[in-house]
């Protein structure tokens, strides 16, 4: 799925990165637990999370994740945006819950990591 379609489906707002030229989303993983994210084997999924702090972006960096979606109305801080920018990430915010977000993406063919 391309980022502009994802934004449309989830009423998502782009807070960092280039939506038009970003990689296509094939897999997604939802968690508020960063230690969970760090157990994933390599496949660079979209990270759907309600955890909004700088460790969210650090974890994405370490896990080779390039796309972060903050769900349930969580807002990115300037510190997070700066770090996401440094790492060429796309970061988005959606008002939808993690369940609704995941359901919509799954319905549109985004695959689970496991």
């Amino acid at each position, binding site marked *: 799925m391309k980022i502009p379609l994802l934004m449309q489906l989830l009423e998502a707002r782009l807070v960092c990165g280039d939506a038009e030229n970003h990689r296509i989303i094939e897999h997604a993983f939802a968690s508020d637990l960063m*230690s969970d994210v*760090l157990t994933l084997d*390599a496949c660079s999924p979209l990270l759907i999370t309600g955890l909004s*702090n700088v*460790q969210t972006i*650090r974890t994405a*960096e*370490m896990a*080779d994740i390039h796309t972060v979606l903050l769900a349930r109305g969580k807002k990115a801080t300037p510190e997070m945006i700066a770090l996401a920018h440094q790492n060429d990430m796309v970061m988005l915010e959606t008002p939808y819950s993690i369940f609704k977000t995941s359901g919509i993406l799954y319905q549109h063919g985004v695959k689970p990591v496991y």
Partner: protein
Amino acid sequence: MTFTYEIEGGNFSRAGTASSDIKKALKQLDLDYTIIKRVVVSLYEAEVNIVAHARRGTLTADIDPDRIVMVLDDQGPGIPDIDAAMTAGFSTASSRVREMGFGAGMGLPNIKKNADSLNIQSTVGVGTRLEIVVNF
């Protein structure tokens, strides 16, 4: 190549900066992507452990042609029962640590999974020393 960093306990806004730096250095070398990920994931969990559980620490990473040796030495409470600490789900983390997305007791088991060797020495009331080796 040797890298040394000071890590400050409790400072979550800086947690991961050392691991990030080492990741950048490793990317300059002609290494397999899965090797780099195993190094940085284990290093980051170990770095976060110092921030989460100790007062301060030092991280030294030695990059050789055939392996990386990472030593994380901290001054802190130490680990009374290392076998218990290595068990998935065991955690003494504070609510502040959990708010940062850690503290589920998955760090040490994940370091063990990603490392070719993990050695932990700890003295209660003094500190903890982790040696993590990943072969290239």
